[in-house]
Every structure is written in structure tokens, then in C-alpha cells.
């Protein structure tokens, strides 16, 4: 069986493939340089120049005591809400760890759905339920508490992040080495002691990772403090307000730049804990699907059940309030049904909505693909210098959205990159802001795939492109789909970066929502929020369905083994 083609022609095919491979890499690098690095540098540059002259004025202004208080405030709420979220998320994750498979699946689905949370509506629901005239605090309990202030910020950030944090932690719990748990029990430790001595240390890297991720997210969050912060000032909102009140781009940029060091620190710790997590996944049988259930002492069980129950109650209240607000004026304290809000939807609502869906779908696909490619070139091909690129790609996630959006305006308003005012700028912004999400997922997935698969394919004659298409991408399909869901959802609900990128005829649903709230049209806002939630849910369910199907395929649902049972075979 000789080769069918002479060597020279075969070599040509490989040259072409290698060229394409370089091209792909080049596009990836160019994209990251152009759409992540360049805008960020533009903003940083803005903080150092006042009308063309170099100055440190903005930073000097920031060193005043008032601004130090600002940083203090930011750190306080961020740390507090991150810690609280982690604690609650841990409780829920621990509960699912010890619960039946059916309950676990139910909770997981609920968590995924509750991640769909358009901005500001939770804050409004919170005010309506627990505010000065809140349904629960005032009408029910006769209290008149003030929800505005740091307590409101912490409460809302905590509630808002629990779903996300819990899902991350559940992943950590799933990866626990079953053998270690069994060994602990075997050596005489009770379930509680095993929990303390074996389980928790195993998930400790995961907990730290979640903590740091939450920290950076909360630090950059400007939507929550704007609605419920009252007089409590934090860095993220300050940057935004500096921009729209005094158009002091220099000062806003300086504030944003100041938020980078703590975020980098958190990222550094995240990377350190990630490398330690990798040691756990050594192929030993993991907990999930092992059929073994973990029994905890009653008292602890009840606490956990309480937390989970509380979570569901809070979520029910939140979404219930939003739904109710679409047909009734909840602020008036009475329930009267009206379809007025549906009629009052702005003229541009439908086209903005359509834009949102299209842009978010494109961004979902593109971000997932680019993130996977980035992970591939960095961790599989191990090309030099890619770790730096990976870091750059994670920057947008660390900095406040408003900062990133402003960078886009500054960077792309003149030739030759004049894409302001087009759909492209919004799509690019959505996409490149979230590459880091799929990058991290792909990293985790790759660490579980045999390193030798690609060399084996190469060995068997596949070109670089054939390897990407036939081996890497098919194996990462689950990552692609889950990231698509995540990116799509956050694109549909994002406001921070987009606030400065919309233009006439190029609006998106989340900004329409923002405008409604800014103008006090809460009923209409509720309708818009519900629309966003429904559409996002629909697309997510579709993607989840595709995900389940592809998982079944890989596990061998279709293949049939021959009649002889494996135990009887002659090997």
C-alpha cells in the first residue's frame, strides 16, 4: 500500500495549511491588539493628557482625601459582597454535593436561568420590596428602612452574583477525588470531619478562584451603585459620572486606571490557584456520577437547606416583582392590571431588540471561537509569548465596562478605523470583552484532554488546519456551547461598555431598558426586562439542548459493542 501521491505534492498541501494556520494566529493576535490593547491604551493615554499636554494633574487630584475615601468605600463594599456571595454560594454548592442527582440537576438549571438578570431591575425590585415604602418592609412589617447606601449595594451585588459563583463552585466540587473521600471515611473520620479535612481543602483553590473573580467583577460594577448607592460613592460609578457630568474624560480615565492594580493582583492570585487546581485532576475517578452520596450531620443539613430555600425565595420575589410590574403599577402599592406599559414601549423597541439578538449571537459565537483558539495556541501549541497575549485578553474583564466603552470611542472615531456608529463597533466590543470567559473554560477543558492527541494526529498525516477542524474543535464543542450561552446572556444584558457606543438606529435592548429607568418609566422598563429575559432564556435552552445532544454522542450513546460481553472477551 504505497502512498497515492508523490511526496512533493503532499508537501504543498502542508505548506498551505501551515500558512493558513499562521494566518489564523495572526488574525487572533491582530484582533486582540486592535480591539483590546489599543482601546485600553487610548484611555490610559487620555488620563495623562490635558488638551494635548502631558500632565499628572488628574492623578494628583485623585490623591486628595475625598478620593482616598472613594477607594476605601469601593474596597469595603467589594470585599464584603464578594465574601458574602462566596459563603452563600459555598452553602448551596455543598448542598448540591450531598443531594440526589435529580435535585442537583434541578438546582443547576435554576442557577443557569437566574443568571439571566437584566441590569437595574433587581435594584428596582429590591427598592419596591424592601425600600422606604417597600411591600415587605413597610406594608407588611411597618418598617421604613433606607435601602440606599452601602448596605443596598452589598445586598444587591451579593444576590446578583450567587448564581454565577455557585455554578463555578459546583464545578470544583464535581472534580473532587472520590478515593480521597472514601479513604477518609475508611480511616475513621465522620462525614463532618471528612468535610473539614478532605472536601474543603480540595475545593479551596476553587473557592479562592471564585473569590477573586467576584472581587474584580464587583469592583468594576457601576450599575448597582448607581441605582441604590445613595450618597455612598465608589470608584466605578465615580468614573462614569465624571464622564457624563463634566465630560472630564481625563479624570474618569485616571480613576479607571486606578482600578487596575487591585484587579491585577486578584488575577495574579487566580492564576496561582489555578495552577494548584490542575494537580487535582489527575484522571482519578471524580465524584460526579460515581453514585456515592455524602451524608452530613442534621444540623448542618438544615442550615444548608435554609440557605438554598432562602435563595429560591429571593429569586422568586425578584422575578415575581418584575413580572408583576409589567402589568401593574407596583409603586402605587396597589395591584391594578393594565396593558399600558406594553403600549408605551418606545418606537425603536423592536428594532433595538432585533439588533440585540443578532449582535449577541454573533458575539457569542465569535468570542467562544476566539477564546478556544487563544487557549489552543497558548496551552497546546505552547507558542512563546502567548501567555502575555492571554493576559492582555483578560484585561477587559478586569476593567470597568465604561472604561472599555470609552476606549472604543476614542480609538475608533477617526480613519482608518472609523467604525463608530456602526453595528461593527458594538459587536466587536461584545466579543472582545468576553474572550477571556471562553479562554478560561477552554483552558480547563484542555487540561483534561490527552496532550498527545494532536501529535498523534500529526503523526498520522493531518495538517495543522485538519487537526484544528477535526480534533480540537469537535472535542471542545461543549465548551463552545456553554460559553456561547454565557457570552450571549451577558451581551444581551450588558450596559456598561455599550452606553457610549450606541448611535441613532443602532440601539440595543439593554440600553433601551437603561433609558427607561433613567427616565423613571418603571412599568415600561419591566416589560423590556421581561422581553430580554424571555428571549435570552429561549436561546439558552436551545443551546443547552444542543449541548446535551453532543454530550450523549461523545459518551457513546450511538455505538454498539459486539455480542460478547467485555468480561468474557479473549483479551
Amino acid at each position: 500500500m504505497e502512498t497515492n501521491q508523490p511526496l512533493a505534492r503532499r508537501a504543498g498541501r502542508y505548506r498551505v495549511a501551515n500558512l493558513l494556520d499562521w494566518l489564523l494566529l495572526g488574525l487572533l493576535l491582530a484582533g486582540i491588539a486592535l480591539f483590546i490593547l489599543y482601546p485600553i491604551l487610548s484611555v490610559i493615554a487620555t488620563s495623562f493628557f490635558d488638551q494635548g499636554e502631558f500632565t499628572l494633574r488628574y492623578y494628583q487630584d485623585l490623591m486628595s482625601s475625598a478620593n482616598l475615601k472613594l477607594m476605601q468605600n469601593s474596597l469595603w463594599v467589594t470585599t464584603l459582597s464578594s465574601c458574602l456571595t462566596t459563603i452563600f454560594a459555598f452553602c448551596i454548592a455543598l448542598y448540591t454535593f450531598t443531594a440526589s442527582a435529580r435535585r442537583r440537576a434541578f438546582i443547576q438549571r435554576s442557577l443557569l436561568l437566574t443568571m439571566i438578570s437584566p441590569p437595574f431591575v433587581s435594584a428596582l425590585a429590591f427598592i419596591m420590596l424592601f425600600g422606604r415604602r417597600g411591600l415587605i418592609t413597610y406594608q407588611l412589617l411597618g418598617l421604613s428602612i433606607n435601602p440606599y447606601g452601602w448596605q443596598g449595594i452589598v445586598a444587591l451585588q451579593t444576590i446578583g452574583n450567587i448564581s454565577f459563583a455557585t455554578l463555578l463552585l459546583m464545578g470544583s466540587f464535581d472534580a473532587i477525588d472520590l478515593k480521597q473521600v472514601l479513604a477518609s471515611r475508611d480511616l475513621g473520620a465522620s462525614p463532618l470531619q471528612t468535610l473539614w479535612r478532605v472536601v474543603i481543602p480540595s475545593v479551596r483553590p476553587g473557592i479562592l478562584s471564585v473569590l477573586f473573580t467576584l472581587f474584580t467583577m464587583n469592583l468594576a460594577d457601576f450599575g448597582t451603585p448607581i441605582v441604590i448607592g445613595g450618597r455612598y460613592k465608589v470608584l466605578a460609578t465615580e468614573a462614569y459620572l465624571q464622564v457624563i457630568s463634566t465630560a472630564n474624560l481625563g479624570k474618569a480615565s485616571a480613576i479607571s486606571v486606578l482600578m487596575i492594580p487591585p484587579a491585577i493582583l486578584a488575577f495574579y492570585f487566580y492564576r496561582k490557584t489555578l495552577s494548584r487546581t490542575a494537580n487535582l485532576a489527575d484522571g482519578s475517578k471524580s465524584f460526579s456520577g460515581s453514585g456515592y452520596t455524602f451524608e452530613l450531620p442534621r444540623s448542618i443539613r438544615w442550615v444548608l437547606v435554609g440557605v438554598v430555600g432562602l435563595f429560591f425565595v429571593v429569586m422568586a420575589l425578584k422575578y415575581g416583582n418584575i413580572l408583576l410590574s409589567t402589568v401593574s403599577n407596583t409603586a402605587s402599592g396597589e395591584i391594578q392590571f393594565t396593558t399600558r406599559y406594553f403600549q408605551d414601549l418606545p418606537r425603536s423597541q423592536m428594532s433595538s431588540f432585533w439588533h440585540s439578538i443578532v449582535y449577541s449571537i454573533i458575539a457569542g459565537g465569535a468570542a467562544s471561537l476566539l477564546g478556544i483558539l487563544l487557549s489552543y495556541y497558548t496551552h497546546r501549541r505552547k507558542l512563546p509569548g502567548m501567555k502575555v497575549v492571554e493576559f492582555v485578553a483578560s484585561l477587559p474583564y478586569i476593567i470597568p465596562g465604561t472604561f472599555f466603552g470609552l476606549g472604543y470611542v476614542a480609538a475608533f472615531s477617526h480613519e482608518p478605523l472609523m467604525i463608530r456608529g456602526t453595528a461593527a463597533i458594538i459587536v466587536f466590543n461584545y466579543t472582545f470583552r468576553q474572550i477571556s470567559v471562553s479562554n478560561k473554560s477552554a483552558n480547563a477543558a484542555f487540561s483534561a484532554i490527552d496532550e498527545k492527541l494532536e501529535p498523534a494526529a500529526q503523526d498520522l498525516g493531518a495538517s495543522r488546519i485538519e487537526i484544528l477542524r477535526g480534533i480540537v474543535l469537535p472535542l471542545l464543542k461543549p465548551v463552545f456551547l456553554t460559553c456561547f450561552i454565557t457570552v450571549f446572556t451577558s451581551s444581551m444584558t450588558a450596559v456598561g461598555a455599550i452606553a457610549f457606543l450606541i448611535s441613532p438606529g443602532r440601539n440595543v435592548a439593554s440600553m433601551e431598558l437603561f433609558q427607561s429607568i433613567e427616565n423613571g418609566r418603571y412599568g415600561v422598563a419591566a416589560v423590556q426586562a421581561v422581553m430580554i429575559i424571555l428571549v435570552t432564556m429561549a436561546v439558552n435552552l436551545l443551546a443547552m439542548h444542543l449541548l446535551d445532544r453532543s454530550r450523549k454522542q461523545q459518551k457513546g450513546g450511538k455505538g454498539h459493542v459486539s455480542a460478547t460481553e467485555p468480561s468474557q472477551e479473549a483479551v
Partner: protein
Amino acid sequence: MKKVLASLLASAMLATAFAGCSGDNSSSGGSGTAEKPYEGTTLSVMLAYGGAEATFDAFTEKTGIKVEYVEISTGEALAQLQAANGSTTADVWFGGGVDSYIAAAELGYLEQYVSPEAEAINPTYRDKDGYWTGLALVPAGFLVNNDVLEEKGLDIPKTWEDLADPQYKNEIIMASPAISGTQYAILNGTLQAWGEEKGWDIWSRINDNVDFYAKGGGEPGPKTCAGEYGIAILAMTGSTFALEEEYPVTAVYPEDMIPWTPAPIGIFKDSENKEAAKIFVDYMLSKEGQEALREADARIMAREDVEVPSAIGNVDTSKLIQQDVTLFGSQREAILEKWDALAGEKDS
């Protein structure tokens, strides 16, 4: 096969997205008739005037010019402009804070245009160089929640000075003048009327009654309607008065003086459809346009021959402050700095 379908679908979506979006921007003018010379053109509008979009259809019918808009606060719009050095895809700026327009004009972002219709508009309500023209006047006043005041045994405030009364502690809510154009107008106008010394003193005492400053002009109203606060300071438009029917609130014009701000309209220097934009501006300043706007959301229109609508209650136009609107622009930085020193704690 699946892959082929998927890529086809993806390209189809991409195509529609980009085609649908980029096509509209170009001015396909020249396809018009003598009567509708710019038929087929599409104007892009940055809008900060509640309810105005209802008038766009009538305009399109009359002139054949389509209107696309995005609702965006003038603060955000100005920031966009600054970051882009004046370059923008929008043609017209509609409504919002006049101080932003003044700043924009100074930075060279606006086009000079004095509409022939501007003759019917009082010169106080328009820029003398023609960079912007007032569409309407937005008076400011109070919105009080009767239930709350009754419950707490408070009197309905009658004047601005009344607000300084300590009985209203923690019951007043208003927007930050750094963000809300209306609120800034209130601050600047009253300072002009009272004079600096008296003015800052009164505001300092009012500040003691405020818990925190809202970050949007649209916040005080709903919050007072919901009963969270007893008194809101806000713009008085038709929709403000309409709240009286739904909630236990009353809209009150202060008896000592009524601050006001013009809601302007302007054309961007970077616009590619200046001629069509001018037609738009002419329409909005014409009697027909002004009446349409007034129907959409009741305000005192800038044109002198358009009647003051009854929907905004009994406004005593003689109480409108005699103020120099150009000072809104020039004094902004100084006033806001002083405001920050005064109220900085509660304001952002």
C-alpha cells in the same frame, strides 16, 4: 451537512445585520420631488426630550425624510463627542441640557444655523450665534406626596426658601445638578435671582434636608410617587401633572420664582445631511411642529404664538426667572465646583 447549514445561517445573519445597519446611514438624497426635495434621506437624531418621537411620523409624512433616533442623555452624548473629537454619525441633537450644547458649540461640534422660524422665538431662548435654538421651556417646581406629608404632619412648601425649613429633613429628593440639566438650571437660575451670597446660604440649608442626590433627572418623580420621599424637585411637564391622576401627589409651582431651562435643538457640524437637518429644525420650530410637540408632551413652547397648554397647570409666566442662559455655560465649572464643596458628601 450540518456544518454547511450552520455556516450558511451564520453568514445570512451576518449579512442582514450589517446590511440592515450600515445601509441607512448614507444619504440617498436626490430621489425627491420638488415638494419633498430630500425624500428618502434618513436623519439620525440624538434624543433627550421625552415623548418627542411621537412627532417624527408626522414629519416623515410631510417631508418624506425618515427619522432614526437613539435616546441618550446629553451628558453621555457630549462625552461621546469629546472622546471622538466631534466626529459623530448623528445629524441632529434634540433636547436635553443647554449647558451641554453651549459646551459643544465652544468645542466646535455644532453647526451654525438660524432658522427662518426662529424669528417667532424670543431671543432669550436661543443662542445668539445660531448654534442652538430653544424648542420649549421646561419650568421646574415641586411634586409633593400628599399622603406622606399628611402622615408626617408637614406643610406643603410654597417657595424655594421654604425648602430650607428643617421640618423637611430627609424628605426632599432631587437630582444632582452635575448630571441633570434641569437641576443645574434650577441651581444656576436661583443663584442668578438671589445673588451669590444669599443663594449659597439657602442651598446649603436645603442640602441639610437631602439624604442623597439622584443620579438621573427621572428618579425624583417616581420615588416621590411611590411614597419614598415627600417632596421631589423636578421638571414640570405634562407627564408630571398626569401623575396626579395615578398617585396621591400634587404638582406645585413655587410662588416666589420659577426656574426654567430651554430644551434646545441643534445640528452637528459633522453631519452629512445638513440640508435635511435644517428642514427638520425648521419644522420643529414652526407653528405646526411646535403644536405637535406640545401635544406629545405638554410644555411651554418657545414660539410666542403657541399657547401655553393647560396640561401643565396654572403656570404664572411672570414668575419665570429673568436669567441669562449663556451664563449656564460659562459659569458651569465654577458653580459645580462650589456645589461639590457644599454637597459633595451626598452627591457623586
